[in-house]
């Protein structure tokens, strides 16, 4: 406690009336020191001694630079000097380093006083340390903190702001809260902020967007507290954190939820679910709209679906479906409704389980009318197309690029069925047409080989179309087909193979060819007739005429006359022969079926041999025959006799005189053709010279041989009358061979 003496060690006389002030100074909580104008300590209270860790004696009477050398260079000294001169009080926070290097902080209030300067000092070391700790806490925190003025100017911001909002703390301090908040959020934020001004310590929670330095918006959530009146703060304090991610997730969730709802409620499809007791659990808008329309009422959750006011028939059907679903079956049914308008509904049922027990069913119905109609149209057009291709006589198959038969029409199928062992056997739907063809081609079927080549050419676009006419024999008859292969592009390249039975046409063509040939034959006959007339009839006639011209000539000798008369007789005889031959030849041609009989070739040869033994025996002729292949044929015996007779006698006539004449006769039978051959070792004939005339009427090539040149003509005529053909092969001095072919 201060005494008078204690307070005046240097003879200082306190002012009267100031004693009590000194007392106050002595007992103040702050340190008090007074410096005179010469910077000497003239008063220090106990707190100062405590603060400076010095004794009163260490201070009083000393100047400050004496006590603290170097103080003139400090900020404190500047302030003290200024205050001494200006006589205006100042505040200063001073760091004080003790001799032991410990540091204390003092808040100094420097006031001018009559003696000089009065310095009040408060030890704020403790406070300062607390604040430091607090700052670290704030600055290391993920949460952000700002202090702002009433007007919104940023006074302080924690460094974590940089990480979240992009601004450096310095940049942020230039900002005003109002510039940072999203325009949509700013109004309500300001209002709430203003509201807390009235009540110190009050706060509010906010969520809003603030602008990131790069321009985008960050969602933040925080609390604002009014600490305007709080000493050491005097600001609006905002604690907040970045919630952008959470916000995004929330928005996503909300969007999805909205979307799902939108989907469910905006679809035309009906969705509803019922419980085990047939009560409506949930339904979408479409279901609600339809049911309200159908029932002319208002449905609601919990309604018994069996009691809805809809036609009984439909209700029964639905009830049946529900029961199935409630037994756990997942299924889809098409419901066909005809009243009031025709509708096809596709209804699907999905049982709802809870703990493995069906507790209801979710149902989904969709109007599939247009789809069903479209399907029906396609089906109809397929039926139509099918009908068209089935109605065609052509056998049609469609194969894909691999050769797989995609479809065949009725005609194709019918033919394949009817000709089970035929090539088409394996070409039903699903079979591989190319492989069937390949197999047959490998086996040597040339037609199929051609077909395969043609198909490949069309498939590989070397040809647009492939046509082939071919014949094939079934068990009953020979058939002709015309094949056409065309390509068309679908998803895959397809080939349409159509085969037309053109047997009828071919038959007609063959008939026409027959008619043509027979007309040609008639024409040849007429020419032949003209030839006969001009040569064989006219020659004797000319002789008779010539004789008639001269017979009256008076100069004729008796012997001449006799010769002439004899000549007339021979000419007349010749004339008669020709007329007889003509008659015979004209009678030939067609052989009637009823005149045919079984003729045995070997017997025929024996008969002829017997009848012409007068030609055979003296002329060294041997007749050999071999009819082992076929010895019997149903034909006209008269003609066949004539053919055999004429060919045998022909060979005898044109034998070589000095050798044994051998005539070989034989038969073969192949491919339903009967072949008869007559070969001799006679003189032969130069076919190059005479070939065209061998079978001509009245053609003779040898003067020595008797005959009128009608034998081979007769043979040919008769062979043709029996539907056969005759050919000759001959070489001079070697022999001649006649070959006759008949269709059996």
């Amino acid at each position, binding site marked *: 406690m201060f005494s008078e003496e204690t307070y005046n060690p240097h003879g200082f006389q306190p002012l009267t009336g100031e004693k009590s002030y000194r007392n106050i100074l002595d007992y103040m909580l702050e340190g008090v020191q007074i410096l005179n104008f010469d910077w000497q300590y003239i008063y220090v209270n106990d707190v100062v001694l405590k603060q400076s860790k010095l004794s009163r004696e260490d201070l009083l009477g000393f100047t400050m630079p004496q006590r603290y050398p170097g103080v003139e260079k400090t900020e404190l000294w500047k302030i003290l000097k200024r205050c001494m001169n200006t006589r205006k009080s100042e505040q200063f926070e001073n760091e004080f380093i003790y001799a032991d290097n410990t540091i204390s902080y003092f808040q100094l209030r420097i006031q001018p006083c009559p003696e000089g300067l009065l310095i009040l000092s408060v030890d704020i070391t403790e406070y300062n340390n607390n604040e430091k700790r607090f700052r670290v806490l704030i600055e290391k925190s993920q949460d952000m903190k700002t202090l702002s003025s009433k007007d919104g100017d940023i006074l302080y911001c924690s460094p974590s702001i940089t990480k979240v909002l992009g601004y450096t703390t310095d940049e942020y301090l230039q900002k005003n809260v109002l510039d940072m908040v999203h325009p949509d959020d700013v109004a309500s934020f300001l209002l709430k902020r203003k509201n807390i001004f009235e009540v110190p310590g009050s706060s509010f929670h906010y969520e809003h967007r603030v602008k990131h330095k790069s321009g985008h918006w960050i969602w933040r959530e925080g609390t604002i507290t009014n600490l305007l009146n709080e000493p050491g703060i005097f600001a609006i304090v905002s604690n907040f954190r970045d919630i952008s991610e959470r916000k995004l997730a929330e928005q996503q969730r909300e969007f999805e939820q909205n979307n799902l709802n939108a989907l469910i409620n905006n679809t035309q499809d009906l969705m509803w679910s019922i419980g085990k007791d047939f009560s409506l659990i949930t339904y979408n808008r479409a279901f609600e709209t339809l049911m309200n329309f159908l029932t002319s009422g208002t449905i609601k959750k919990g309604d018994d679906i069996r009691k809805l006011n809809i036609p009984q028939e439909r209700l029964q059907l639905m009830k049946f479906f529900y029961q199935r679903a409630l037994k756990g079956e997942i299924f889809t049914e098409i419901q066909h409704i005809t009243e009031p308008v025709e509708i096809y509904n596709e209804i699907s049922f999905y049982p709802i389980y809870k703990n493995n027990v069906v507790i209801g069913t979710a149902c989904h119905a969709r109007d599939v009318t247009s789809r069903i109609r479209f399907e029906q149209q396609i089906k109809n057009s397929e039926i139509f197309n099918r009908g068209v291709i089935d109605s065609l006589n052509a056998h049609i198959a469609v194969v894909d690029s691999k050769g797989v038969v995609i479809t065949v029409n009725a005609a194709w199928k019918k033919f394949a069925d009817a000709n089970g062992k035929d090539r088409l056997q394996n070409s039903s739907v699903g079979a591989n047409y190319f492989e069937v063809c390949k197999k047959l081609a490998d086996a040597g079927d040339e037609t199929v080989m051609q077909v395969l080549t043609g198909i490949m050419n069309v498939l590989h676009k070397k040809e647009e179309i492939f046509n082939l006419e071919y014949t094939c024999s079934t068990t009953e008859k020979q058939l002709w087909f015309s094949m056409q292969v065309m390509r068309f592009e679908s998803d895959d390249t397809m080939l349409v193979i159509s085969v037309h039975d053109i047997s009828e046409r071919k038959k007609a063509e063959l008939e026409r060819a027959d008619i043509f040939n027979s007309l040609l034959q008639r024409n040849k006959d007429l020419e032949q007739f003209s030839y006969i007339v001009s040569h064989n009839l006219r020659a004797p006639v000319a002789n008779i005429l010539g004789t008639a011209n001269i017979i009256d000539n008076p*100069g004729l000798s008796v012997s001449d006359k006799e010769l002439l008369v004899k000549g007339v007789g021979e000419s007349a005889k010749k004339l008669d022969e020709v007329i007889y031959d003509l008659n015979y030849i004209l009678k030939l041609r067609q052989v009637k079926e009823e005149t045919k009989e079984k003729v045995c070739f070997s017997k025929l040869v024996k008969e002829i041999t017997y009848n012409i033994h007068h030609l055979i025996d003296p002329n060294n002729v041997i007749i050999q025959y071999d009819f082992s292949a076929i010895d019997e044929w149903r034909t006209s015996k008269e003609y066949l006799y004539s053919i055999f007779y004429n060919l045998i006698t022909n060979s005898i006539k044109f034998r070589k005189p000095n050798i044994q004449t051998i005539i070989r006769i034989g038969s073969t039978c192949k491919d339903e053709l009967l072949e008869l051959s007559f070969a001799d070792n006679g003189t032969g004939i130069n076919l190059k010279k005479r070939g065209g005339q061998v079978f001509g009427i009245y053609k003779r090539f040898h003067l020595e041989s008797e005959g009128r040149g009608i034998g081979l003509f007769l043979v040919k005529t008769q062979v043709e009358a029996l539907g056969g053909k005759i050919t000759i092969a001959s070489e001079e001095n070697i022999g001649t061979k006649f070959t006759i072919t008949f269709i059996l």
Partner: protein
Amino acid sequence: MKAIQLYIMVDDDAINNMLCTISLKRYLGDNIQVKSFTEPELGLGFIKNEFNDIMQRAVLLLDVNMPTMTGWEFMEEFDNLSEEVQKLISVYILSSSIDEQDKQRADSNKNIIGFISKPLTQEILISISNNQHISQKDQHFFS
């Protein structure tokens, strides 16, 4: 110009040859020489060999339809003979044919003077003997 004395007949019809020989002698005189061949090969042989010794103007009456050698084949051989021989022998086709084709074929051969349709008549023989061409007009058929 002296009338032709030698007549060569080539025809397989012996009756025709006989008739023609009688007709030639009756209409043109007995001193006419007639050589007749029923085999054309022999007729050709005569022209090729013996005729070379005679070498006088002659008429050849040639038939067309003969078994071993036709008149046309005969003419092919004839065309190969010496020009001298060809000049001396006037060839006529004597045929019973009334076929137009035969006539045309005769016309197309330069060595054939005319086509005569049987029978031979007095008029035709006289023109032949005078070595007259039988004009196109005259080449009608005598029937």
